[in-house]
């Protein structure tokens, strides 16, 4: 019997979860990983949870570094909760937990299906609860924030200011008023992933004070969310939960 609570707990500590069959116990398919009684070559039968780049890995081999040698017998099938420690011709995976191959796959699928969304929501909750200001608003102006020519570094953030008209205050702010958001307009590797407001863009903005930035800013992808009703309700729920 697989308990959902176990699956959830193991899942929270794993990045690569799959049903697999032990192909060769006490073996390794990677030169960097020494074969021991704790290792086994496992064929991946079905990928349940994985980073995007490994979602099509079914049929491939992994070298499992088991927590225990027990149960790593040939042709044994199991549900493996793992983290990838080496990406080579095949993968080396460090075992977090192992369960019998699911006879009730629905439980596994149900638990695993929402894991990406749960992780995203956790990050969103963190960003919203740490924000100084959360509003639904519209960009009404964009301008360079600094008059100087720049800082002479390839990592210069090139700060700009977005003026945002508040449509709905969610945490602080007043409707109809404008607020200023400082954002790095640079394409440099240090800054390219920070949101870049667009003229007329409507969004939920979670504004933070960060380091020595002279104004409120929104540097994470979770700081700028779509302004649709579903997302607004989700943010409101997370704000309520963070206060309770």
């Amino acid at each position, binding site marked *: 019997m697989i308990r959902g609570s176990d699956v959830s707990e193991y899942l929270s500590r794993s990045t690569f979860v799959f049903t697999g069959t032990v192909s060769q116990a006490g073996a390794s398919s990677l030169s960097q990983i020494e074969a021991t009684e704790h290792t086994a070559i496992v064929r991946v039968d079905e990928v349940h949870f994985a980073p*995007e*780049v490994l979602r099509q890995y079914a049929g491939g081999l992994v070298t499992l570094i088991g927590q225990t040698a027990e149960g790593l017998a040939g042709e044994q099938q199991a549900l493996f909760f793992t983290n990838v420690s*080496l990406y080579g011709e095949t993968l080396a995976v460090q075992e977090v937990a192992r369960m019998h191959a699911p006879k009730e796959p629905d439980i596994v699928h149900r638990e695993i299906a929402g894991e990406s969304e749960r992780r995203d929501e956790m990050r969103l909750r963190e960003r919203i609860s740490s924000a100084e200001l959360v509003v639904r608003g519209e960009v009404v102006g964009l301008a360079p924030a600094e008059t100087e020519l720049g800082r002479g570094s*390839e990592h210069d953030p090139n700060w700009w200011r977005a003026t945002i008209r508040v449509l709905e205050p969610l945490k602080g702010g007043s409707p109809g008023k404008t607020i200023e958001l400082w954002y790095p307009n640079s394409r440099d590797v240090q800054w390219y992933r920070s949101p870049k407001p667009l003229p007329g863009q409507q969004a939920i903005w979670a504004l933070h004070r960060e380091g020595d930035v002279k104004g409120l800013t929104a540097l994470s992808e979770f700081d700028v969310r779509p302004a649709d009703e579903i997302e607004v309700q989700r943010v409101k729920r997370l704000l309520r939960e963070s206060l309770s």
Partner: protein
Amino acid sequence: MPLTVVNMTPQSLSGEQNQDSEPQIAVNPANPREIVGSAFTPDPAGGSLAPVYVSEDGGLTWALAPIIPGGNSFTGTGDLTIRFAGSGTFYAADLRGDGGLHLNVLRGGTFSPPSAMTVVYDRPSNVDQPYIQAATSAGTDRVHVGANDGNGIPKRQSSLEQSLDARTAPLPDNFSTIVLESRATSGVGDAPSVRPAIHPNGTVYVAYLAWRAWNGITSTTDVVICRDDNWGTGANPYNALNDPLDGLRGNRIAAGLVINWISPTLGQERIGSDLAIAVDPTNSDSVYVAWADNAGGPYTLHVRHSTDRGVNWSGDVRTVTNAKNPGLAVNSDGRLGFLFQQVTGAAPNQRWVTSLELTSNNWAGPAETHVLATVPAGTPGATFWPYIGDYVCLLALNTHFYGVFCANNTPDNANFPSGVRYQRNADFATHVLLNVNNITQVPISIDPFFFHYSPRYKWHKELKPEIKEKLEIKEFKLERKEKFELKENIKPEIDTKGLKELIKDKDKDLVEGGKRFVEGDPFRHLGKIAERLDQLEQDLGDGRAFIRPEERPELGGNIPKEEPTG
């Protein structure tokens, strides 16, 4: 072939499509089969350790191993450079992936399996483009990190972070900061590039680009070379090379150069701070430097040479227009390797062409030139800067050159004139990348490419006579016992590791195809043995089975001809 080019993306990551730019490489002098590479590559699983590429077979195959603390899920780290010291200890200097301009210097643990690195030095803010070099002297590891440092001062200045005992000193290791810049800089300080080069005798050169003026569009730049003759020790380190005009630390070998900053871009890549330096491992008086400027209009690479420890410098011995990312290295034959990336053609059909040039006479005669890659410069579109890298890396170890560059990864043999090996799934007939299932098409992206240049002497002329003679005698004896007597005839320093493998391989050759060797071409077998000896020499990091140029006085000091065996 003397040249091997390998796409470093592992087979299990065939589905990846990151902009894996700005590469570096480190070759273990104690075991050159151990090589580490790096690029802006994240841990695919989004873990907190940023990955490096590791190879245990001299760069033929690669795996990705998350080992650097402070990784992010987009590019792994910020700026990252890596080196092995002579002790075989692996070091890295990076801007943490989770921390802006936050410098870490790190020391590696086990190579196989790769283990997480340990932070041995930490500066939390305002450091840029750390560039590491490492060496081992008198049993201690010397680590020198060039950096553009703005800590505690209003302007960023060219500096060096260094430790004279990075391997065994207690944590935090004994790093110290030395500000190299001795003159007034522009309002924003110096350019980001600061490049050290180490000679085993303790000579340390450092090159940097000093901004004397900067207006956001162009800089007015001096190319400055500093030197220390004893590992940067003493009360006034890096004061061995003063400028003849103002007497201050650092010889300004070119002054008042106009250099465009960031744009106009070159093949989607930003420009403005390209610099490389290399010292001849056989002669610390001989040092080369390369930089790029707009003094003549287009962004142009210049290579210059000094034979008197950086006091006097040649004019340009080589220039390349519309080019950046210089890499310089000198091998144990005094041969200079020059790696660079050049944009050719007219938009929209421009190409990034990556070339390796080898010269023994500063291009007085034709250089041996290898085009490593010629790929479209317009695709894929840049996700961020740097598009292919603010730098590449070229190293020399004994007679060998090792390097790495980044490029569009379209699997097309025409794009790789020196040949290429892919680990990731690819269909070279249709020029498409394929996912791990070998079915689903994957968009092209930027990948790191490793290369290894291994000189092959024409063995039957250049193999040491005593070795050749003995080998030939043994070749005509059939008894296995006697074959083992080859051991007597190989240089003692070589005869330590891998000899059994050599003999085993030789035996395999002898019975290949069911024929006894005497019925075949004995030279073919000797050629294979010569290659094995070369590999053994490389493995050992010392000892030579082959004639060195200085051992051939009849050639007047010229390098013997090197003919690829193909």
